[in-house]
């Protein structure tokens, strides 16, 4: 067996038995890591593969979170809540993406930033729907059920952890297949030289839009994991500083690697958790550490380890 397969199986086993090994807090942390991983993986399809830096992903995350919260308050079904949240993220990405993908580089980034902040102000001002600065409260962690077939109570943290874990793994597997497919290769081509791709007979705009919509779906999915976990949704999740999280973890892990955003997310929460114990101004310390890591590990932590550390252990 390849070392990578062994590692993946070990990791899966570890995650599977985590509820036995660790307490509630660990599970809560891992759920957050999974949410950020899914969020950042979608974001990196845009940045690392299509060459578009979006600063508005939190907008789609929030749309997903609010949509799933709204559903859960009316219909107590986790499946429907997650599905609607994901679709809401994708549909809003389709609408805003149609306007954004006409531009690239800094213009694209600025457009996505302003659309993201539009969602933020909507969440803030549209009291009747979003609850304004109070947000939506009392969102139930609805059971996972298909009426008449099965119903699983999601109230214990372990159960919700398994739900997020399984859905995340499916999402990660899907995007892994996407980036290694002809579609993924065509996106990489657009990143490298859009003119040449156009002259391969491919509509660049359509492909950019599709990539944007997939990133929106992933942001929506990540967002819809949140309300059942926290039981509330508040406007700050739409703020641009939240859009910066996938940017940061992706840069930290490495933009041209598949696992970069995941490794980045893990580091993000570990570092954050350690600093928060000492100071409330954790972002300052965290920012400095990220800058250091990005400077030391050129191309991301993942690239550094796979090029410098791993070869010493694995002989070819």
């Amino acid at each position: 067996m390849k070392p990578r397969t062994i590692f993946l199986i070990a990791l899966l086993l570890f995650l599977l038995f985590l509820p036995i090994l660790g307490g509630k807090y660990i599970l809560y942390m891992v759920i957050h890591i999974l949410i950020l991983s899914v969020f950042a993986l979608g974001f990196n399809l845009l940045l690392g593969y299509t060459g578009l830096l979006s600063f508005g992903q939190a907008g789609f995350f929030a749309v997903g979170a609010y949509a799933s919260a709204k559903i859960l308050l009316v219909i107590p079904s986790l499946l429907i809540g997650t599905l609607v949240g994901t679709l809401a993220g994708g549909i809003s990405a389709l609408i805003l993406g149609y306007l954004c993908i006409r531009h690239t580089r800094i213009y694209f980034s600025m457009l996505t930033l302003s659309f993201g902040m539009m969602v933020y102000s909507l969440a803030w001002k549209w009291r009747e729907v979003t609850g304004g600065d109070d947000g939506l409260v009392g969102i139930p962690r609805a059971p996972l059920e298909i009426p008449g077939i099965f119903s699983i109570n999601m109230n214990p943290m372990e159960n919700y952890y398994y739900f997020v874990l399984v859905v995340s793994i499916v999402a990660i597997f899907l995007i892994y297949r996407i980036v290694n497919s002809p579609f993924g290769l065509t996106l990489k081509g657009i990143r490298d030289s859009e003119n040449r791709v156009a002259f391969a007979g491919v509509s660049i705009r359509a492909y950019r839009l599709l990539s944007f919509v997939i990133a929106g779906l992933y942001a929506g999915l990540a967002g819809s994991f949140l309300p059942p976990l926290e039981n509330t949704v508040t406007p700050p999740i739409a703020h641009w500083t939240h859009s910066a999280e996938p940017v940061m973890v992706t840069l930290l892990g490495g933009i041209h690697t598949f696992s970069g955003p995941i490794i980045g997310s893990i580091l993000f929460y570990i570092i954050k958790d350690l600093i928060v114990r000492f100071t409330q101004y954790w972002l300052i310390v965290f920012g400095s550490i990220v800058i250091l890591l990005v400077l030391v590990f050129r191309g991301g932590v993942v690239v550094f380890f796979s090029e410098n550390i791993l070869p010493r252990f694995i002989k070819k």
Partner: protein
Amino acid sequence: MQEILRTEKLKKYFGVVSAADGVDLSLERGVLTSIIGPNGAGKTTFINLLTGNILPDSGKVFFDGEEITHLPIHKRVKKGICRSFQIMNIFPKLSVYENLQIPIFSLFNRSLSFFNPLSRHVDVNERVEKLLREIGLFDKKDVLSGTLSHGDQRLLEIALAIAPEPKLLFLDEPTAGMNPVERVKVLENVRRLSKEKQSTFVIVEHDMDIVFSLSDRIVVLHRGQVLADGPPDQIKQNDDVRKVYLGEEVLWEKI
């Protein structure tokens, strides 16, 4: 001779400079045509207008009897027009193999396939390998294309332009910046491919040796207008053309 592409009063101004000033031109199937002219004559602009990189101010372009004046690039490619670029336009961060996979997947209408890994598409990969052998880059298929030599990058650029199997192919200075050995290699490829393939080649070149040895027909552009048009022998004798190239006398003496 069957007409493949026709322009009608094609005009494009950049400010007050006319890059294409009412060009009426017809290209014929199977005739290797060269477009020459002094710097700033509007050669690249003319190609850009035909391939869709820029849109004309007025005038029309017909391909296979169909108007394509305002068609986006990718739709023109699907109809059978492709080009190479004067400035290198490959995918530098992808391997040579992956570079060619992109247009071939598009040719097979499978660029949207998003679930199966690249290696599963056996028929596409066979075609990529065939093309790699034709162009002579098979040995370097796993090399990152950005690290290829300049000459090999130009070859890859041409391969990328050929890959969509166009009926009409524009090569914009295919030998720019090459050493003589690489130049011969590229030209042999162009000559062979123009015979083997069912495509019509149109070449923009500065090197007169190449132009006169390769072309069936030469079109001379000057200030956005067609100055002369005919077989190489006729162009060589043309006084207007000589005047335009005044100061490049040496170039002409050589021929």
